[in-house]
């Protein structure tokens, strides 16, 4: 039986995207497009919330899972997309044409991400990933200036390579297990012996290639080469979108695939757990060290997002090392993603407003911003403090939560590397703070910001503070989501 009502959030979003494109032809006041998109996202979120707690269900022969895990991510993507659209309104007004397409593509990529979080089958994972990626390739090139075009092309080419690698990995896994459905793959692997797998290492190779493919999405080292250029060249709202949503989607898939398909037997999960631990250590160290000398704030945040992916992979490593019933790694990862999304969005929203006025992304041009735009500067300071991982912001709780899971599973060494990395990162984040608070303003002109942008900024900053001070509720949601895996 087909339970189409379970697809309500996705169908709503697809319909909204089409409506937005059509509306673009007939209306002149383009802010309606943003309004319709927000309404569509809200309705979709309503459906998602209504399904929460409905148990683990599946669609299309176990191709799509509707479990708390998927719903948690769907809600996260919807909130992110809504904030990005709110923050885009002023920015998009600069485009003479294609505003409808801009919003529609944001919605379509959100749709792809929602499917990514829900799919439990290799081929549909690939399809959802491509739906997301192709929308994003176009969005990155939307400015049509040389930098943006270069970014788009780079993203497209490297993304295509990553997709090919991913497909190859999937093909190998399929070849050795004969299945594409994650639950079936798990069953097939458990039927194999350690000696058998070692004798023909294709399965392991497939697994590693899949890590490489997804590693591109989450900007894990050494698959991060695209990040700084694309972040710098893309329209700033899209950079924000890429840095949080695309990363979260990658982690959603990684978590589901590796926990569901390769979670057992233990020798296998220990393997990839350690693989992620090494990737995590490399990612945060390199990301932070390379971020130190950056002078462009978008590039700096690009490298910072590589480092943040490293912290997130501490959670994945924990999942690999933990026993199957232990949700510490998974819930920590989910909570971290939520808090990272709000924090990074908050930072980028402030940057959007400032760069709209300054037409520059150089850190030195933020000089004296506290006098020109006190609210924006304060919000940006809060978000940077959160990225360092200092209280009372969300980043602190997220790190505490994810690291406590890691310590419980014997990863104290990784946690020590991670906390020292946080200290390194404080240096470059605080450099921006220093420039904003102690520098001399280049001019007295105030920095304007649209109402929609202010709403988006307020939502993310309040979220950052709430998650930092009373995180209990979201932690509870993350725990429920971590428990409810359909497959």
């Amino acid at each position, binding site marked *: 039986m087909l339970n189409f009502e379970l697809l309500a959030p996705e169908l709503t979003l697809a319909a909204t995207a089409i409506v937005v494109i059509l509306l673009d032809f007939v209306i002149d006041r383009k802010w309606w497009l943003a309004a319709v998109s927000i309404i569509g996202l809200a309705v979709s979120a309503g459906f998602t919330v209504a399904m929460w707690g409905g148990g683990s269900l599946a669609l299309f022969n176990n191709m799509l899972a509707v479990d708390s895990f998927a719903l948690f991510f769907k809600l996260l993507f919807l909130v992110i997309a809504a904030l990005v659209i709110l923050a885009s309104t002023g920015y998009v007004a600069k485009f003479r044409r294609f505003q409808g397409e801009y919003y529609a593509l944001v919605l379509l990529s959100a749709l792809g991400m929602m499917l990514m979080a829900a799919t439990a089958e290799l081929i549909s994972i690939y399809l959802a990933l491509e739906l997301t990626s192709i929308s994003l390739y176009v969005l990155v090139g939307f400015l049509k200036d040389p930098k943006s075009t270069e970014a788009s092309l780079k993203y497209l080419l490297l993304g295509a390579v990553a997709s090919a690698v991913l497909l190859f990995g999937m093909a190998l896994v399929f070849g050795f297990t004969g299945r594409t459905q994650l639950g079936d793959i798990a069953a097939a692997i458990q039927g194999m012996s350690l000696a058998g797998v070692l004798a023909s290492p294709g399965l392991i190779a497939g697994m590693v290639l899949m890590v490489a493919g997804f590693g591109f999405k989450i900007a894990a080292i050494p698959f991060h080469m695209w990040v700084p250029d694309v972040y710098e060249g893309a329209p700033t709202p899209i950079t924000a979108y890429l840095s949080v949503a695309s990363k979260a989607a990658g982690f959603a898939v990684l978590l589901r695939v590796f926990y569901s398909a390769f979670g057992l037997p233990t020798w296998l999960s220990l393997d990839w757990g350690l693989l992620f631990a090494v990737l995590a250590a490399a990612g945060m160290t390199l990301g932070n060290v390379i971020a130190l000398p950056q002078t462009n704030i978008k590039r700096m945040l690009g490298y910072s997002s590589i480092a943040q992916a490293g912290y997130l992979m501490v959670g994945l490593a924990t999942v690999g090392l933990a026993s199957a019933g232990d949700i510490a790694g998974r*819930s920590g990862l989910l909570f971290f993603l939520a808090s990272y999304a709000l924090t990074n969005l908050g930072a980028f929203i402030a940057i959007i407003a400032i760069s709209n006025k300054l037409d520059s992304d150089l850190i030195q041009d933020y000089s004296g911003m*506290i006098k020109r735009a006190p609210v924006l500067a304060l919000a940006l300071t809060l978000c940077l*403090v959160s990225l*360092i991982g*200092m*209280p*009372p912001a969300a980043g*602190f*709780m997220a790190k*505490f*939560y994810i*690291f*406590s899971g890691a*310590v*419980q599973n014997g990863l*104290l060494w990784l*946690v*020590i590397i991670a*906390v*020292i990395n*946080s*200290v390194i990162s*404080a*240096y470059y984040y*605080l450099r921006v*703070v*220093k420039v904003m*608070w*102690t520098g001399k303003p280049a001019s007295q002109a105030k920095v304007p910001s649209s109402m929609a942008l202010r709403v988006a900024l307020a939502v993310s900053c309040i979220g950052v503070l709430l998650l930092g001070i*009373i*995180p*209990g509720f979201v*932690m*509870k949601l993350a*725990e429920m989501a971590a428990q409810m895996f359909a497959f």
Partner: protein
Amino acid sequence: MDFNYLSVIIFLPMVGAAIIAFIPGLSNRVIRWLSVIFTFVPLALSIYLFAIFDRSSGAIQFEEKLSWIPAINAHYHLGVDGISLPLVILMALLGFLVVLISWKIDLRPREYFAWLLLLETSILGVFCSLDLLLFFLFWEIEVIPMYFLISIWGTGRKEYSAIKYVIYTLFGSAFMLAGILSLYFATGSLSMVDIAQGGMAMVQSVMPVAAIFWLLLIGFAVKLPVFPLHTWLPDAHTDAPTAVSVVLAGALLKMGGYGMIRICVSIFPQVAREFALILIILAVVNVLYGAAITLRQTDLKRLIAYSSVSHMGYVLLGIFALSQVSLVGATMQMFSHGIITGLLFAMAGLVMHNSKERDLRKLGGLARQMPVIVVVFSVAGVASLGLPTTSGFAAEFLVFVGSFTSAAVVGIKLWTILGVLGIVITAGYILWMLQRVFYGPPLEKFNKVRDADILERVYMFVFVAVIMGVGIYPAVLTDIIKAGVMPVMGLLGG
């Protein structure tokens, strides 16, 4: 307890900060008076708590406990005992006095007072928290206002000093966080009280206890500071604005000593005993090395800053001598050093502000222009070198007696005697400093320099009254501290 005294004390300054920061259009005058109100009420409340504190009991009093984050078993758990209450009063008192000291700040006063009040909230929070996560939260929050206060309102290489301070502190707290996570993993609890009272058996079974002890200790050692982790201190103190130096030396360093007693000694009594000798040697190095370096300083504030390194050595000595008297002495020393060095920095600030000169080689003969300041500065100076009838004497005497007679550590007599030598050097640099600043032939260029005004005399008087009061009748504090130290001695088993 119906009224949540501690929450009110901790969060009132923050409320004040929020009002000052977010209500537009307040005049500088209103901002100052708001700061006075929002720091005076916590001070009054903390003195009230001091009055009604049950001195016969070593238990945690005025406790508040609420579930905070159920997912990780964290509680909003506050409470004070005889060790923390004097430090709460110290911070509340300094918090109030630094508002007066900052009265003449006219660079961005709105932000300045907001950060100053936020700083007070975070330090008070550290002294009252009984939950490790809450403790760590307050511990970290303190870094942010400190960073802004030094880098915006400081002097000299202020931005360098500010970032150096932040990086050192975060480096220390990174290790502390790893330690707290390990403790949490081993015991499943974040409550300091529960862990101290019997979580250790569980810890031993999971990971080496000594490793956790050292992880936590590094965090506290950076803050105290312990040689060789002290190099942030002279820079931060020297370049910070006067009021911030007062808080920094007066209350902030004590977070380190307090953490050592509350966490390192109370939770790991056996390990503390095992490593006591190493830490005592470090303490003596702190005292002598700090004092020797102080002798060479030519900058007024830097000299006082280095003297803090030396004096914090006594705290470390008292803590790890692990006897009842020495622990009481260490806590006394924290309180007394807070007041004395606070006054020293305030006086140094006045001298610098009024004479526009901070180089000892260029100062001189100011006694004629500053008859009041010279007296108060001298009182603070002789208190710092431990003259009887000042609080400095009571505190250092207790530390030395307690350490000398301690049975916990082998060979401690020798180390204590070496430590006492520090007093001699202290006398040297304090008297030398006073002489260079105030005596000698009067200099032409300082003819127009003025003395302290009424407001400044008011806060000087408060400082001196506390120094002399505690010095003449130390039992006012030692009674209460003893009540707090008793349970720690119980944990130490002797």
